[in-house]
């Protein structure tokens, strides 16, 4: 089968300490998958090493059957919002246009065509009124949407998103979920680092439970079980039973 994301035996260590150990992940095309696990489980590291930003000690990453290095144009990345300095002197449109730098290649400056595309994806996230806004004057949810627009403009087949719901209100969360589902309808594959276990069954098709090792991954109904969650999060039972309560409804 041709997987959209096919990670095998991925092992990553910062210095000696292994952060990911022999991790496998297969995601079929057109699937929304949540990557969940406690803080420090290696979720960000999994994404970063899949994208070649962190060197893996072992393992391989295939995107639609070919090595990631040949598939860059087909992969988009939404980093954690806190990973950049939002006081950088630039505006919303400019940041979104950065998503097109890869396609532009060396030296070429973005022009009118790029501007139009960037505006289009800003409209998709409902930020068209903020085009010329300095990025430091955005709320957290608006910053998140700018990052999403930057990924949308890349028009990729596979998306990796690191906590896109972090610090957004219910309305923005809904808007982002709708956007993810739009992407799925277009046959795109989206892997999302997600912290709110209660919404996993509602938002996602697949889920990966990660804590240094892969605990489980697959369709939500099959692998999102109390037992797997207990293994992933350790003995935090109260937390886990709150979740199964949410699951029943």
């Amino acid at each position, binding site marked *: 089968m041709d997987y959209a994301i096919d990670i095998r035996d991925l092992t990553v260590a910062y210095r000696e300490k292994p952060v990911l150990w022999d991790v496998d992940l297969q995601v079929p095309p057109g699937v929304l998958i949540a990557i969940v696990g406690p803080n420090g489980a290696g979720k960000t590291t999994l994404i*970063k090493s899949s*994208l*070649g930003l962190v060197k893996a000690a072992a393992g391989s990453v295939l995107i639609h059957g070919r090595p990631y290095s040949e598939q*860059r144009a087909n*992969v988009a990345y939404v980093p954690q919002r806190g990973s950049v300095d939002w006081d950088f002197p*630039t505006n919303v449109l400019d940041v979104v246009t950065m998503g097109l730098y*890869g396609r532009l290649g060396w030296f070429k400056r973005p022009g009118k065509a790029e501007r139009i595309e960037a505006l289009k994806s800003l409209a998709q996230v409902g930020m068209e009124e903020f085009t010329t806004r300095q990025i430091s004057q955005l709320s957290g949810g608006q910053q998140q949407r700018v990052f999403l627009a930057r990924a949308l403009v890349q028009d990729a087949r596979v998306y990796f998103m690191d906590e896109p719901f972090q610090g957004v209100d219910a309305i923005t969360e809904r808007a982002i979920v709708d956007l993810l589902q739009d992407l799925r309808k277009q046959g795109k594959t989206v892997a999302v680092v997600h912290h709110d276990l209660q919404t996993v069954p509602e938002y996602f098709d697949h889920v990966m439970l990660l804590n240094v090792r892969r605990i489980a991954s697959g369709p939500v109904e099959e692998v999102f079980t109390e037992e797997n969650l207990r293994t992933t999060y350790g003995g935090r039972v109260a937390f886990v039973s709150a979740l199964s309560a949410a699951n029943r409804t």
Partner: protein
Amino acid sequence: MIDLFSDLFNDYTLRTVALGSALLGITAGSLGGFALLRRQSLLGDAISHAALPGIAIAFLITGSKAPLVLILGAGIAGWIGAALISIVTTRTRIKYDSALGIMLSVFFGFGLVLLTYIQRQPDANQAGLNSFLFGQAAALVEQDVFVIFVIGTLVLLFMMVFWKEFKLLSFDSDFIGTLGFPVRLLDHLLTTLFVIAIVIGLQTVGVVLMSAMIIAPGAAARQWTDRLGRMIILAGIFGAISGVGGAITSSLIPALPTGPTIVLIVSIIVMISLLFAPNRGLVFRKIRDWQAGKRLRVDAVLVDLYTLASQHASAEYPHSERVLDVMSTISGPARRTLKVLNDLELAKPIDSTHWSLTPEGVLRAERVIERQFGGGS
């Protein structure tokens, strides 16, 4: 003043000095702007100090004081310093700031030792190397300016050619990596340009204070604009102004080293920018807060008057100040704000202590209430 200008055009030495320091000011200012955004300002300080032994060694090996030779020595040493800092922080548990401090003092100390050694030599040729400590613009000759011009232009050219890449690298280095650009290579390239921008200024500004020439123009420029392009251009202009100002002042006053003079001028620019720049300046912010506070008080008293009056037949029904004092959501007596309302013709005094809204005041109050409690968006 007129003398100074005629000197500038006629005096060959002064013209050389002014041109050279303008060029290095532009280069240091604009590359320093990028360093500021990448939080590498202090790296500039370490690099300039680390360059000192390179200058001494270049002189010891070649026996020459040709600008290109010394700049090359300074550049290599500065670059090694920067590389060591990066290696130490990634390979050991030593933190970035400690690594900076260690490298700065070790290299600078070593440079001082070499400089002392050179001075002990009987050879008369060594004179002048000392000016690398605090800078001596007056010593700039045509050959120096030519070298600064060629190298500085190259650095700026590279910066413009790689503009889009450097911008994204500075904003989000992970993201540019996922687009397939070689992050490490771009990082090295920008750092190298940074090192070059620093070392071409060392003779004029001196290793001790060169960091001011790098950090300050960018920091001042950031105050005035929210666009990267404008910020970098402005940083270049500020760098040029302080470079030229410092160089000329120190050339005219004997025994005044250039570095400190430049620092003085650039500090004034920074001070003005911190205080008076629109939006980000302190004074501007104070004024804006004060105006917002005043508007808030005006609105609050308006609404109070309106609320009181709405319990009577007429919206313009007068009420006493005392009631407003008690009622007001804003601290302090209402009288001052009532006077403001009177000036704006939104309220008028009925007698010495009673006030009522004017028809305009009623309208405005209704609008405020609408905005705060009604509709939303």
